[in-house]
């Protein structure tokens, strides 16, 4: 019988060479800006205690309230971006605020993604009345405006970082569920899934081995796009005062506290936090877009 010796090794060698080429290509096309911003923010958040020049919760010694940024008349070098209405260093508060945004953003997305993917797989693969129930729940959920719902929940359970994470996860899982369910419905009809069923695999096994690995791409892309939404949601909650409680600084909270100052001329209290929110959401969106383009076409090629 004709065995196929060298050819298959050639195939894997060729595949390896091909992979190297595509890795290089991927690095070249990567959204450098987004990666730099996100990477930088993560470092900032991790090393906040070391980087921040002052304690974000205490007024700076030797500075006044409403000091402007250092390049303006009356600004100091010690408080680069100025001080707020309590005399706290804006820059330090921004740095520590990154922590909140990133942690809540990432963890919240993780929670939303996990719940949503699980629900989506159950609805799509098990089908029947399980599917009906889950879909009606998502319908109802989606009918509620997310922020209002979040506020309601936050008011009920009381603010704390973890509560916020869980609340945001609970609010945003539904979009996940819908999309994943759609993927699973298609996957379910694919031949390799049917083969596994014919071979006698239990439902759990099929989900674990065949369905889940193949929805990971979509789940990842969704995650990267959801992070931005969650961050804005957190900022909104903080803005409204039901987010992460003080004294932990959060960008949204900084905006809220400084509402009245915009008209009074102390623009640095609002512009800088606003810019930070803009930056992180932009970066995650860019990254998510790039990820989608990279992962989806491959998915279609299967």
């Amino acid at each position: 019988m004709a065995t196929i010796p060298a050819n298959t090794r050639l195939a894997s060698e060729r595949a390896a060479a091909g992979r190297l080429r595509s890795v290089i290509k991927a690095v070249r096309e990567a959204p450098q800006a987004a990666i730099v911003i996100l990477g930088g923010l993560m470092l900032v958040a991790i090393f906040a205690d070391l980087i921040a020049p002052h304690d974000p919760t205490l007024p700076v010694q030797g500075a006044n309230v409403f000091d402007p940024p250092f390049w303006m008349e009356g600004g100091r070098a010690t408080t680069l971006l100025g001080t707020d209405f309590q005399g706290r260093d804006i820059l330090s508060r921004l740095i520590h605020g990154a922590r909140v945004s990133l942690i809540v953003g990432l963890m919240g997305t993780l929670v939303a993604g996990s719940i949503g993917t699980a629900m989506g797989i159950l609805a799509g693969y098990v089908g029947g009345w399980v599917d009906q129930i889950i879909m009606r729940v998502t319908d109802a959920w989606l009918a509620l405006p997310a922020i209002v719902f979040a506020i309601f929940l936050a008011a009920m359970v009381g603010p704390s970082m973890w509560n916020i994470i869980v609340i945001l996860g609970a609010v945003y899982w539904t979009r996940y569920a819908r999309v994943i369910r759609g993927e699973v419905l298609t996957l379910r009809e694919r031949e390799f899934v049917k083969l596994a069923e014919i071979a006698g695999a239990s439902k759990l096994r099929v989900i674990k081995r065949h369905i889940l690995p193949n929805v990971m791409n979509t789940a990842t892309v969704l995650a990267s796009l959801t992070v931005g939404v969650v961050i804005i949601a957190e900022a909104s909650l903080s803005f409204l005062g039901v987010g992460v409680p003080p004294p932990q600084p959060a960008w949204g909270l900084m905006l809220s506290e400084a509402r009245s100052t915009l008209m009074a001329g102390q623009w640095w209290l609002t512009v800088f936090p606003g810019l930070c929110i803009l930056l992180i959401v932009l970066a995650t969106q860019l990254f998510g877009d790039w990820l989608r383009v990279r992962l989806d076409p491959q998915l279609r090629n299967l």
Partner: protein
Amino acid sequence: MAQPVLEVRGLKKHFPVRHGLLGRGKTWVKAVDGVDFAIHPGETLGLIGESGCGKTTTSKLILLQETPTAGSIAFEGRDIAGLEGTELMAYRRAVQVVFQDPFSSLSPRMRVEDIIAEPLEIHTDLSRAAIGKRVGEVLELVGLQPDVAPLFPHEFSGGQRQRIAIARALATNTRLIVLDEPVSALDVSVRAQIINQLEHLQRTLGVSYLFIGHDLATVAHISHRIAVMYLGKIVESADSDTLCARPMHPYTKALFAAALPSHPDDQQQERTIAGEVPSALRLPSGCRFHPRCPSAMPVCSEVEPTLQPRDGGGVVACHLYD
């Protein structure tokens, strides 16, 4: 003669179809409408027919992806209807399938060794090492090197993937493999490899095949016996050699007439039959083939013919031979 591996009697599968303004009307698509056959150990039964003949539905019934409306399927003497628990698992272990499309039958994110190991993990409690060894064995059986096991499906060509699919189908000492157009999506030279491989495996392991195909030459080559299906029924069935030497049913003859020649001078004299397979929702009266049959007689539109023994062995359902 040893007990048949698979015996199908009076198998029917009717699908309900709603129609009419508010879905009030209900008719039936008789996808499989009274099919009998048997497959013996180490034998290949070829099932041939065109769209709508019911061969795919028959394979789904055998693989328990659908339940029959009527009739029975017996595996090694035992009726498989209503099997549960360990008996069902024993059936699944012994009866496997290979599909047409090599690009979607293998889970893209699983390594080959895991794909082949899956039936073993489901049905046996062999150790990881024993499973690994068995995976290597079946890979060699289908003509691949055992060291390709850690690779992913996309690193293989179509023909190699079909070999992997066959390896996986054989992993658990399978008795019967349903091959649903296994070579139709492959290149000509690769088809020959796979067909030879399948024949070799049958000789070595004694596994039986239900080979479903649409290319007469391929089916005739690999099958010991052939059953020709049309609109849910078997119209003729005989040994492969006998059928090729002397097809009797007009539809079988039409299939032969439509088959492509193997040499330019081999042109068929008869023109192929006209028309297309009618919709399964509106089955012709009497013999289902009569509207297209060049030899139709008045009785053909009234009475449905039954399978009768034919010259040289086998059966044929046609009033011409009553």
